[in-house]
């Protein structure tokens, strides 16, 4: 992430803080950023919001009251919303700290130098928090899968005639037994915490994401879910199974939690899993 705070009228760089290597000189970039902003203001009557350029994503915030242009550049796969929020945070902080000075500013950029340390401090915090996203999604994913498994347990326990219920339980127990005895699964201790029994139902929530490859866990839970649904549909038939899923509010759960499922990119998987033959 690289950050510029510029005088939007004069094109002067008040602060530049670089955490990434740019293939061009900093002063050239500052001139280009201000010129681009001036161009869009003149031609399109509104400032630039964001652009992709030179393999980077560039986010702009123009503050017309103080004639300041705040720009952040980062690699393209960083989320725009995240960059914008960080820039907004720094903008507010900068104006709070230097707002009065800017009113009578004579052009001495030394005044703003301490803000470079401020940017560094917060950048370090954001860097440290970056892995948190991964864990947060993992915990949310566990919550979703556990809830789906609980609802499936409801399908098995509550609504099926005894013979079919026994067959399903037998097959699910066998599925979990075989799963746990697979060589690749045995090598990953956290996956042994995934369990099913007739009495206690499904349990996946004790998995510790710091001890395991999150993608591997996700893949294995999805595999188990696919197999459980297959067992249920084979025993009940597709249409009847759909009725039972509906009676247990599985579709309600999916629709009520759609924003979360979209965030986790699970909505397509779950809808296909339950709806398709």
């Amino acid at each position, binding site marked *: 992430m690289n950050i510029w705070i510029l005088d939007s009228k004069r094109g002067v760089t008040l602060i530049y803080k670089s955490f990434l290597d740019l293939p061009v000189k900093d002063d050239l970039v500052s001139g280009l950023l201000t010129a681009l902003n001036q161009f869009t203001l003149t031609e399109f009557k509104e400032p630039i919001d964001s652009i992709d350029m030179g393999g980077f994503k560039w986010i702009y915030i123009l503050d017309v009251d103080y004639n300041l242009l705040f720009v952040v550049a980062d690699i393209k796969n960083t989320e725009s919303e995240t960059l914008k*929020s960080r820039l907004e945070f720094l903008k507010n902080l900068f104006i709070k700290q230097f707002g009065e000075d800017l009113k009578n500013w004579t052009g001495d950029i030394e005044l703003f130098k301490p803000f470079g340390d401020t940017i560094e401090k917060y950048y370090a915090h954001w860097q*440290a928090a970056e892995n948190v996203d991964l864990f947060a999604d993992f915990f949310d994913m566990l*919550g979703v899968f*556990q*809830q789906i498994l609980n609802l499936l347990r409801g399908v098995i326990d509550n609504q099926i005639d005894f013979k079919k219920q026994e067959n399903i339980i037998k097959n699910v127990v066998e599925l979990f037994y075989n799963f746990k005895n697979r060589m690749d699964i045995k090598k990953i201790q956290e996956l042994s915490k995934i369990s099913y029994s007739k009495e206690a*139902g499904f349990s996946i929530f004790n998995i510790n994401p710091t001890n395991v490859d999150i993608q591997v866990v996700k893949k294995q839970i999805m595999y188990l879910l696919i197999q459980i649904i297959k067992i249920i549909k084979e025993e009940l038939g597709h249409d009847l199974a759909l009725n039972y899923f509906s009676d247990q509010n599985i579709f309600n759960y999916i629709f009520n939690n759609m924003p979360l499922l979209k*965030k986790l990119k699970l909505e397509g998987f779950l809808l296909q899993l339950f709806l398709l033959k």
Partner: protein
Amino acid sequence: MSSKRSYLFKVLTSGDGGVGKTTLLHRYIEGKFLPNTLMTLGVEFFTKELIIDDFDIVLQLWDFGGQSQFRFMLERYSMGAKGALILFDLTRYITFENVEEWVHICTKHNPGLPIILVGSKLDLAEEIVIKDDIVEEVKEQFNFLDYIKVSSKTGENVEEIFKKLAKIVVERELY
């Protein structure tokens, strides 16, 4: 655990930096008072198992970083929550003033989320500046389930907060 069903509920722990969220969670989970926890970077996670009405409950406790530089990250993390605690420090008025902001963060994706308002550092009796009557007004305004004062140092009311919230979540989600 041997009772009949297991459920996992996501619970948010929020409030300004330094109000004692992480300290409260350590007290609840480990029974220890840690007076000097490090700043929470973004969010941290804890889990606690308990039994309520014959249900095995796992509380997945999301400890939100209270510092302003993390705030923009938190609305997204609040998705899917079933309950929340909003803490303020009974000895620092500014932390009480910011309760409204935390309500918005916690409820943006979860309208109607059950929330308990928690006044922390009850053991610092001499320094308490926030009186019950003004907290009651805020409790009414935001329709909080309850207002409870705690001390992570002495352990007073710590278990009660989580039990109460968990019970309410169970009633809402499972009955």
